[in-house]
């Protein structure tokens, strides 16, 4: 499996929170290589089951979210300019970006900005110029339609890759590659894989999918902050230094310890990410689903989160996949630590 190719397929699909159909179908076609027991639920959650056959084993949930940040149309003014709100997107990065408006059909637009030649009056509004007037937009664009910022996936150097929506399509790719590594192997767990909707707007997809999964424990895969020179070292992981194993009051410490032990034993590059409460990932919701599901978060460090130029090191995705695979394998991770 070529990870960059998989990332390109995933990151070129749209799928702003609450409108994940196309991203879900891209992810479904990729996961269907590993099991026939897969599909998309009414919430645009992708699910896939991989059972060992024979004895019933505990169920391990592998989850990553499929939605991405973007914008949502809230109003169309008399001249046809679209007023939009952010669904998680970094509003500082929008000026003069090219966007796609996902209405009845896809149309292109530009985020309005004033040039340096004229004095700026900060409006705090996000305005999109589609080149159409209000009448021409009727029947094509309506309030509630989602908008994505255009940015093509590109390789920066060797294993450094930039694309929009790496949050959390990088996590989706890491689970897919873990399944590739586990192909034909005996497992300690029955696996339920979910690629869930609406994480960016409150983890709603995971709340539903985790309940339906009947999981006994869960491994969440998300992205976290990679160090850039303007950031604080202690607030970031480092790109290229491996998978970030979460340690937090909201995560199951036994799982964290088991993952650290496995990473050491198998010489998988890892770093720890210590948080002092919740994690801001689906693990927060999954862990309190039903009667409670022990959960831990593995994070892939990315730079420039929630922008069109999110950047990842493919080696970190591989390290994450290897650790997931080791945890799920026959001699894998355990809660008995």
């Amino acid at each position, binding site marked *: 499996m070529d990870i960059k190719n998989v990332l390109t397929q995933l990151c070129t699909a749209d799928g702003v929170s609450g409108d994940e159909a196309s991203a879900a179908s891209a992810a479904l076609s990729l996961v269907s290589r590993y099991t026939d027991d897969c599909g998309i639920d009414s919430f645009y959650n992708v699910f896939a089951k991989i059972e060992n056959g024979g004895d019933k084993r505990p169920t391990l949930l592998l989850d990553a979210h499929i939605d991405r940040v973007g914008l949502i149309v809230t109003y169309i*003014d008399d*001249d046809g*300019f679209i*007023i939009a709100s952010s669904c998680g997107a*970094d*509003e*500082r*990065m929008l*000026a*003069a*970006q*090219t966007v796609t408006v996902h209405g009845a059909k896809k*149309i*292109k*637009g*530009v985020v*309005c*900005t*004033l*040039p*340096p*030649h*004229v004095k*700026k*009056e*900060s*409006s705090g*509004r996000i*305005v999109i*110029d*589609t*080149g*159409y007037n209000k009448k021409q937009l009727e029947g094509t664009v309506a309030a509630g339609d989602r908008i994505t910022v*255009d*940015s*093509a996936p*590109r*390789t*920066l*150097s*060797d294993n450094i890759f*930039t694309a929009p929506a790496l949050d959390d399509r990088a996590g989706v790719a890491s689970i897919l590659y873990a399944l590739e590594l586990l192909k034909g192997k005996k497992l300690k767990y029955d696996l339920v894989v979910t690629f869930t909707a609406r994480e960016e707007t409150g983890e709603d997809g995971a709340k539903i999918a985790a309940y339906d999964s009947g999981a006994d424990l869960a491994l969440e895969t998300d992205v976290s*902050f990679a160090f*850039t*020179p*303007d*950031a*604080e070292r202690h*607030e*970031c992981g480092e790109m*290229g230094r491996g998978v970030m194993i979460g340690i937090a009051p909201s995560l199951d410490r036994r799982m964290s310890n088991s993952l650290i032990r496995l990473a050491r034993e198998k010489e998988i590059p890892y770093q720890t990410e210590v948080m002092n409460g919740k994690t*801001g990932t689906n693990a927060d919701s999954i862990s309190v689903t039903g009667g409670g599901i022990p959960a831990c978060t593995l994070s892939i460090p990315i*730079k*420039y*989160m*929630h*922008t*069109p*130029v999110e*950047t990842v090191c493919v080696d970190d995705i591989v390290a994450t996949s290897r650790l997931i695979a080791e945890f799920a394998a026959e001699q894998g991770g355990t809660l008995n630590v």
Partner: protein
Amino acid sequence: MFDMLKELCACDGCSGDERGVAKYIISQLPQDCEHYIDGLGNLIVTKKGIAVPKNKVILAAHMDEVGFIVTYITDDGYLRFAPVGGINASAVIGRQLHFKNGTVGVIGTKAMHQIPKAEREKEPSFDSLLIDIGASSREEAEKKVAAGDCAYFECGYTEFGDGMIKAKAIDDRIGCAILLLLLKKRLPYDITCVFTVQEEIGTRGAGPAAFSVKPDYALVVETTTACDISGVSAEKRVCGLGKGAVVSYMDKGTIYPKELYNIAFAKAKELELKAQTKTLIAGGNDSSAISVSAGGIPTLALSVPCRYLHSPSCVIKKEDALATASLAAAMFCELCAK
């Protein structure tokens, strides 16, 4: 014309680095044109017409575009850089830039989650930004990029909406395209077109080019700021898309001769071409240099209204570009015989 515009916008040519644009323009010249490149890099093209004009008239468009120049490479392999020409830093973050050798970089900051809200609302400054080309050390970065190299916005030429075009560098490649279109025609009079350099860093190329040619009149074919967008009051919109060629009486660099201004509107009316003026004294162009060159040259600017100027997404309307091209051709003939 728009096929040429697409190719012109794809050329990378920051101020001081315009050779690639000149090369493309030369490749498009018909056989009956003569050309030379002067010491500064200005491309001067002449073509014989049916008659020798009463007045020598030049048309000028600048070849350079706004971009970025690498000033320093950090120990960690990031690139410090500065804008070449006026660019808002907010139009730079969150996007890809490329170098002529194909190297791609991205510009971002630490994650929004790590920045307090008040700080997030401040306009970023170039001093705080870095280009990330995926290098992990200065040595690795230096294999691809050196200080002094120019970085460019992605071209992204797209036709969209109701006859709109979006791309980088439409300022002033549309002017170059309009001049090329004219040079490809059979003309009633001898013509000289100057494709100038270094407009974006202070209209530096046009003056010497005009000095060498010493015309009686000059027409600058340009783009100009259109702020006809939501949230901008009517008097501050400067000009608007779909309202035709822009003829201004004054901008930040030039007070235009009233006589030429009136001729332009009369000509537009006669030919039923849409034309408008600017409602704000803003911007400037090569006219400021040409008009005071060689003892003074009466100069008029004819501009295509353009939204989001100096960003990677300059937006023009095709019909405005066509109106500007027609008016430029008509004004050329008019001034030749005046």
